[in-house]
């Protein structure tokens, strides 16, 4: 924590709150509160779209995943951007033409059906909450290094600020916050990538002399009749554990414990032990890091470096400044060797140990899919990959906080133009994510406990100012996105449920008041969820939110626009099936079983992403129910004789 970080952070928060209070006067009517009066210029709305969309998942999560899994993280960038094609070509103009404040308005415009109002509102609420979780996790991630506060405090802080923003000025202030934040994010991400390229690559990254490069030791070992022995008498073997097909060896030296991985040299067949990092929870509850009690001074070291650059090692491997293409070609060179880190947890002496151990990958294997998504793995692995790419492609155009932004511009043509500005800005940013992620991977700025920190830590390797700016912008990113999501959720409850479904809202003023109360409730819920999901990669969580949105909303939007036989009951059933099948499948997925503390292999649903099942199921439901209820709908619509 330093003064500059705190000053910049406070300035950002003050600025954001200042905007909210400035625009508070325009949020007195429902139109002003939920849709910024429909008067935002398309250029501003386009960058605000980027601000909405480039959330914690994009900035923190994607960079973190690229830093730890290479190209697999960039798949999210590709999928997220591709989703805008669906938004532009299929959704933008019709949605603007049909709707008023919420996605439900557009869906229900031709039907005026209570079932649609109810289900679309529930869907909006649930998708918004799913999307809120990673944003709040991201908030906690940022505040810890920036202000030295615990994760939970960061989450609570964001929750309180966002509730203030939303409760004071609604969509108008959110739009301008997003516009400014989106623009700053693009500029400073570009600056960060520029300095990464100017620094170039080296096998011993020392963060510009700020943090000495840590060397990990190896020890020669022998094996006789299954028993390991060490050549160096200074070390004693205390325990050996076999986990995930790997051998982890606990060594003692001068009374201090350490964990090592045993491996055979591919060329000589010689056995050696490689030093790892580890955390341990002892039987008495004491937390240990690398053999000493955990403290602010004793944390896991940051990692990430290349062992060889295009076949070169040592000082002569350092490249100096690189152009973007040379940077990618050197990282992806088959003769480049990149040190990645995996982890394994197991019981030891009544306690629990997690060992973080290095694995080495050739550059060409890192710069293609396969490190995280096993495209060459089992059929289930491949279907999982397909499911993810489908959900990313179809999810964007179904996200409630994105859809409501179409109501802030004056015309369908403005909706179209703002989408194009968004595609340009977001596409540019996503290209930068590959450089930021690989920069973190090769500059020793990966936090083993939380890969979401990779981009801010990369910025910190260039000094406090860049780190403070990037972190403050990232924090504003979270604020803006969470504000948009809470407005979407409050619109769903106050406008769709209370006003149009239950008809209990009697005036415009009441609708705004109800929206603000809901904003408080959803904000409080988001705080709780953000604390619970600490440590989970935020882009992965957003991938799940995309699957829910794509399953719940997209089939009804597309079919309503392109299939004349679509009925109100078909839409209602489709949303119901889409929401509950996708959330149900996620709850029974390997990822959630891991969170429950159970063996992921025992999860009843084998896929991590439900999209490939729940999206077609939702489409199928709509078609079947529409066909079954068509005659009834026609009869109801026929004029009385």
């Amino acid at each position, binding site marked *: 924590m330093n003064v500059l970080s705190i000053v910049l952070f406070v300035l950002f928060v003050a600025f954001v709150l200042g905007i909210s209070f400035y625009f508070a006067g325009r949020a007195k009517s429902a139109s002003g509160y939920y849709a910024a009066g429909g008067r*935002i210029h398309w250029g501003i709305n386009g960058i605000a779209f980027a601000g909405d969309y480039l959330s914690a998942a994009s900035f923190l999560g994607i960079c973190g995943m690229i830093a730890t899994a290479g190209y697999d993280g960039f798949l999210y960038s590709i999928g997220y951007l*591709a989703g805008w094609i669906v938004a*532009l070509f299929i959704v933008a103009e019709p949605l603007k033409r049909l709707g008023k404040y919420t996605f439900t308005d557009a869906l229900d415009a031709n039907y005026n059906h209570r079932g649609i109002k109810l289900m679309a509102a529930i869907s909006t609420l649930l998708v918004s909450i799913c999307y809120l979780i990673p944003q709040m996790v991201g908030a906690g991630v940022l505040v810890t290094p920036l202000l030295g506060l615990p994760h939970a405090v960061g989450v609570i802080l964001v929750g309180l600020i966002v509730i203030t923003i939303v409760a004071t000025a609604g969509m108008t202030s959110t739009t301008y916050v997003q516009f400014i934040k989106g623009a700053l994010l693009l500029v400073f991400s570009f600056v960060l990538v520029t300095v990464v390229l100017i620094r170039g690559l080296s096998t011993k990254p020392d963060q510009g002399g700020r943090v000495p490069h840590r060397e990990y030791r190896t020890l020669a070992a022998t094996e006789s009749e299954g028993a390991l022995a060490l050549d160096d008498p200074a070390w004693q073997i205390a325990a050996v554990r076999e986990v995930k097909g790997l051998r982890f060896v606990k060594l003692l030296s001068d009374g201090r414990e350490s964990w090592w991985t045993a491996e055979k040299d591919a060329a000589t067949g010689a056995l050696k032990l490689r030093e790892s990092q580890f955390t341990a929870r002892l039987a008495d509850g004491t937390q240990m890091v690398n053999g000493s009690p955990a403290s602010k001074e004793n944390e896991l070291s940051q990692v990430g470096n290349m062992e060889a650059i295009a076949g070169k090692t040592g000082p002569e491997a350092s490249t100096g400044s690189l152009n973007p293409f040379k940077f*990618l070609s050197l990282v992806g060179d088959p003769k480049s060797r990149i040190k990645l880190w995996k982890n394994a947890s197991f019981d030891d002496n009544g306690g629990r140990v997690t060992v973080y151990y290095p694995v080495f990958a050739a550059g060409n294997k890192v710069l293609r*899919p396969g490190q995280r998504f096993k495209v060459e793995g089992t059929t289930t692995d491949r279907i999982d990959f397909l499911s993810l790419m489908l959900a990313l*492609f179809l999810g964007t155009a179904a996200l409630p906080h994105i859809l409501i932004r179409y109501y802030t*511009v004056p015309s369908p*043509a*403005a909706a179209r133009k703002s989408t194009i500005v968004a595609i340009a800005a977001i*596409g540019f940013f996503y290209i930068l994510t590959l450089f930021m992620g690989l920069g973190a991977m090769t500059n020793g700025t990966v936090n083993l406990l939380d890969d979401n920190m990779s981009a801010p830590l990369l910025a910190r390797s260039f000094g406090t100012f860049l780190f403070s700016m990037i972190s403050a912008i990232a924090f504003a990113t979270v604020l803006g996105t969470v504000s948009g999501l809470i407005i979407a959720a409050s619109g769903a409850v106050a406008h769709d449920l209370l006003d149009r479904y239950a008809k209990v809202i009697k005036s415009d003023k009441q609708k705004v008041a109800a929206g603000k109360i809901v904003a408080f409730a959803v904000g409080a819920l988001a705080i709780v969820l953000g604390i619970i999901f600490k440590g989970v990669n935020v882009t992965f969580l957003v991938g799940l939110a995309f699957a829910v949105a794509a399953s719940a909303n997209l089939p009804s939007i597309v079919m309503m626009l392109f299939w004349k036989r679509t009925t109100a009951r078909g839409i209602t059933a489709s949303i119901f099936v889409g929401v509950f099948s996708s959330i149900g499948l996620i709850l029974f997925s390997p990822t959630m079983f891991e969170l429950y503390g159970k063996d992921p292999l025992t999860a009843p649903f084998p896929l991590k992403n439900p999209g490939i099942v729940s999206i077609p199921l939702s489409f199928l439901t709509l078609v079947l129910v529409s066909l079954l209820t068509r005659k009834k709908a026609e009869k109801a619509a026929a004029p009385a004789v």
Partner: protein
Amino acid sequence: MLHEPAAKTGPDPAFQFKRRLGAWMFVLYALVYAGFVVVNLVRPGAMEIVLFGGLNVAVVYGFGLIIFALVLALIYSRACGRREKRLHQAEPQGGRS
């Protein structure tokens, strides 16, 4: 603050054209996107092939998908804008889009 006046949307004579063009462009992009996914599933090793300047298929295809999206978006916007202008000139009493 660059605020434009709120506008009521009237009939849009270019609506059918825009919907058809959007659908076709969506199909075109979806095919190219599907190609990326299929190559990864069927021949993942092909993503390692270096195409030019040391850049492999994964990087070129990935960047290509992002740039292609922007190119299609610009073509779509230009085509829609021209059609809207032409139809509005032909039917001056028609509604604004």
